[in-house]
């Protein structure tokens, strides 16, 4: 029931080849262009960050594995632009030679002069919420089965490797936008978000070292109480 992006703990990927710390930030010019294009299109206001993550997750497994990082971004951007009605499939099919008409959303485009302010402002995810915090630091909790509970195959941020695992509340981050809802236009539905710490042995049959731990940021809906 997982999607291809949910790869935490997977075997078979081989060794990591770290680039030197002074390697160019963008290995190719088009990498930089793809990132900037994605950010600039975000300013049109036709999707939120959870939708854009979900668009990348909805790439087919073969595309996801064959595409490089910025190819995934580009493909998801094109898919989102069509899914949200900004562009049509015909728009993508051919670049016309005749002058284009200005798009109804053109007034919302990000001008160069606003870039610094927009990047500095960011998009905070903390919100006031009517959902009371059910847990406090030190409480023992168990994660539910990973998966979106209202949209089949929908977006979620509880990785499969941390399904049905027992952990301890480390800290309360306040209430944050709930991605499982926000990715599907079901509202921000903010609720308490916690850092939850798990013993490595609670997650892996053969943990590397007895004292090691993994911390995940998890929404209250992902958690169930464990009576102690």
């Amino acid at each position, binding site marked *: 029931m997982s999607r291809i*992006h*949910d790869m*935490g703990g997977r075997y078979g990927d081989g*060794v*990591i080849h*770290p*680039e030197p*710390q002074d390697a160019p*930030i963008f290995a190719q*010019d*088009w990498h*930089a262009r793809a*990132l900037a*294009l994605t950010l*600039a*299109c*975000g*300013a049109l*206001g036709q999707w*939120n*960050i959870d*939708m854009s*993550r979900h668009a990348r997750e*909805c790439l087919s497994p073969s*595309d996801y594995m064959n595409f490089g990082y*910025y190819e995934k971004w580009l*493909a998801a*951007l*094109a*898919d989102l632009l069509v899914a*949200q009605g900004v*562009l049509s499939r015909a728009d*993508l099919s051919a670049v*016309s030679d005749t002058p284009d008409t200005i798009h109804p*959303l*053109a007034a919302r*485009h*990000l001008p*160069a002069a606003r870039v610094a302010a*927009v990047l*500095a402002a960011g*998009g*905070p*995810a903390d*919100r006031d919420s009517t959902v009371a915090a059910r847990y406090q630091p030190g409480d023992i909790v168990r994660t539910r089965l990973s998966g979106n509970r209202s949209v089949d*195959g929908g977006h979620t941020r509880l*990785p499969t490797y941390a399904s049905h695992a027992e952990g301890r509340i480390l800290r309360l981050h306040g209430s*944050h*936008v709930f*991605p499982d809802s*926000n990715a599907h*236009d079901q509202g*921000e539905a903010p609720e308490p978000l916690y850092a939850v710490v798990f013993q490595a042995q609670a997650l892996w049959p053969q943990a*590397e070292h007895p*004292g*090691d731990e*993994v*911390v*995940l*940021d998890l929404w209250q809906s992902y958690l169930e109480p464990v009576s102690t």
Partner: protein
Amino acid sequence: MHHDLKLDTAGGETPAFNMPHDDPDHPHSLLPSEPALRVKALETILTRKGLIDPAALDAIIDTYENKIGPQNGARVVARAWHDPAFRAALLQDADAILDEMGLNGRQGEHVVVVENTPERHNMVVCTLCSCYPWPLLGIPPGWYKSDAYRARAVREPRKVLAEFGVTLPDETAVRVWDSTAEVRYLVLPMRPEGTEGWSEDALVALVGRDSMIGTALATPASEAPA
């Protein structure tokens, strides 16, 4: 009509999401498949409709190539090493400190700083995508976004660290932070021995990017760049 310009924000008013989940015929396949041509085609289409300003793209690239990068995080770490009150405040409430320093912003709206000690080594990953504290470290390096790092960092962090040339003593526990929400984590590495009395500026040179992700230690004093 008033409207706040934002990038793909965490929320707000957006039209209904009609993403066809598992459409085998994804619209992206209509664009040229060669990626450099693909990005060029999409940029041209959007520019002609007035949906993007190519100069804004240049400004975004300039920001992350020249203005925002690990030098920002290194300043924070060096100051924390140098100033115990700053360090305590940073560990308590990083957002307040980073706001004051102008080091918040996109992909760094909520930051928690985690401190390495002889008893605990912290290391950061995003197994589901590539979450990373942009205002402090810039755009993540390729390895951070690689399948191998995303898949393995949570299960076998010590083997991963060994591939970065880091071996931890048995008595040091590893705590891996999987960035699954909009909270971004910055590792405060241990201050190298033999740097007592060093200025903040001198300390900055010992703070490499990877030490703030947790896949490296701070540079030893003896290897300080000239």
